[in-house]
């Protein structure tokens, strides 16, 4: 990485982190909780107990494999959804008749809440890692697919004429014109898909007890290990926060490389 690029990168990272003074309410709440908590409680264990529960989990060797399983499913599922969603989205969006013909079907598929795909997949595919991955990819795919196809369908018409003037092949047309104009919309779709993918990953683990943080959470709740439940809540929360920030940085970098092009036609 050249020096200038590093500077840009650091500035992007800094822009994504809000000033720390904004954390005051959270710290006040946690401190009050710690001070007012009546010792070990089945409902509101003090924050320091969360910490010892997390350390215990780590020492028992359960935390790391569960976390690794969850992160792997999430990353692989999201990657699959992005690859298939963007590919199909471009294929559908660049052809007007195909877009119109598939529109209502896709809209209805999207209207089905992603969590519901879990029981369906359990019945059709059984309990295993492939099912877990399929469900996560299937839930995360809709926002990406629909954003990509609607953006690809609304590429500035003038660009068509330009492409024809230059005798661009279909491959070049997609690579040089369609993709650069839809990048911001694809990113928006991925941004919507990320929390869905996290939620569905955890849900599959909770419903099927396939190894992962979700299974661990529901298991500690069933055993009334309240401190452990809160500890896992914090871990999951931090994971969501980290993924969110990481994606914001990636988004900023990508948008700098492919800045939004000519505005799309209104739909």
């Amino acid at each position: 990485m050249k020096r200038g690029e590093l500077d840009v990168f650091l500035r992007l990272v800094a822009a994504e982190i809000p000033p720390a003074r904004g954390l005051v309410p959270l710290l006040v709440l946690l401190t009050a909780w710690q001070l007012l908590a009546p010792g070990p409680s089945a409902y509101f264990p003090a924050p320091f107990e969360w910490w010892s529960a997390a350390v215990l989990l780590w020492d028992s060797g359960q935390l790391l494999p569960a976390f690794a399983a969850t992160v792997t499913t999430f990353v692989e599922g999201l990657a699959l959804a992005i690859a298939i969603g963007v590919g199909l989205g471009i294929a559908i969006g660049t052809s007007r008749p195909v877009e119109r013909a598939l529109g209502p079907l896709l809209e209805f598929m999207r209207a089905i809440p992603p969590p519901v795909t879990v029981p369906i997949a359990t019945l059709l595919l059984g309990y295993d890692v492939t099912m877990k991955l399929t469900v996560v990819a299937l839930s995360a795919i809709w926002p990406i697919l629909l954003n990509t196809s609607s953006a690809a369908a609304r590429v500035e018409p003038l660009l068509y004429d330009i492409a024809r003037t230059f005798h661009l092949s279909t491959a070049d047309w997609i690579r040089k014109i369609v993709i650069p104009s839809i990048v911001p919309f694809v990113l928006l779709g991925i941004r919507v898909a990320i929390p869905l993918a996290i939620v569905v990953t955890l849900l599959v683990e909770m419903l099927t007890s396939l190894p992962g943080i979700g299974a661990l959470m529901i298991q500690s709740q069933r055993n009334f290990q309240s401190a452990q439940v809160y500890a896992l809540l914090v871990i999951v929360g931090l994971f969501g926060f980290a993924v969110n920030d990481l994606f914001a940085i990636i988004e900023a970098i990508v948008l700098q490389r492919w800045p939004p092009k000519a505005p799309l036609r209104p739909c």
Partner: protein
Amino acid sequence: MTARRFSGRPSWRPNVAGFVTVAICVLAWEMTIQVGIFDYQYLPAPSAIVRGAGELAASGELITATLHTLESVFLGWAVAVAAGISLGLLLGSSPLLRRYSLATIEVLRPMPAIAFVPVALLLFGFSIQTELMVIVLPSLWPVLINTMGGLMEVHARLEEVGRTFRLSRSAILYKVFLPAATPAIMVGVRISLTLAVVLAVLAEMVGNPEGLGYAVVSQQQALRPDLMFVYVVVIGLLGLALNALLVGFVSMSFPAASAEFKGPRS
């Protein structure tokens, strides 16, 4: 595409090709199963699902489950909207409060909704409170963020107009800022309704054993895929219907808000 109706151009025409595709897919699904090319033990034919729907409607189970889910969606959504708008108004009108709480919101907001289920179960057991806790916390954020953002984007000149008329601080907020921010607030309110439906189903699947979400899981465990698909379709239709009702209501009561109402696809 409901939004087209609001854009002023009378461009609505029935998407024949689209509905034909849906019909062909359903027919093809029915045929493969009837003929037996594709014999998945747990994939029911559409006709079996329709029969299942009749069965569930006759026994009243479908109505009971739907009403339970609707109740939790509305309660949770109402609380989220009320809390979100009030907090959003507070934060949107006070830069000081904003400075000392934005980072907290940024940390709490990406928390995955489902992570609240075990905590809610711990605190409230199998009850509607568990569902409400899971619904309210995550669907609060879109309302709060949109209200705050809407207020912050109100043009400074409007506030000066209010001052010129010697309106009090609360009158400026109520008569100037709130109407100007309504379109943004309504976008948040709509996103939050869609979210509330998903969260209610989610909470019923792993938390409170009642309603449509639990019905899907229990029919799956009972190996009745036909009945399970009935509930899946009902959940999808419920989401579409609630969304359409809200869009209709907003375009009637706040005509000015509906132009920007569509928002990003989510």
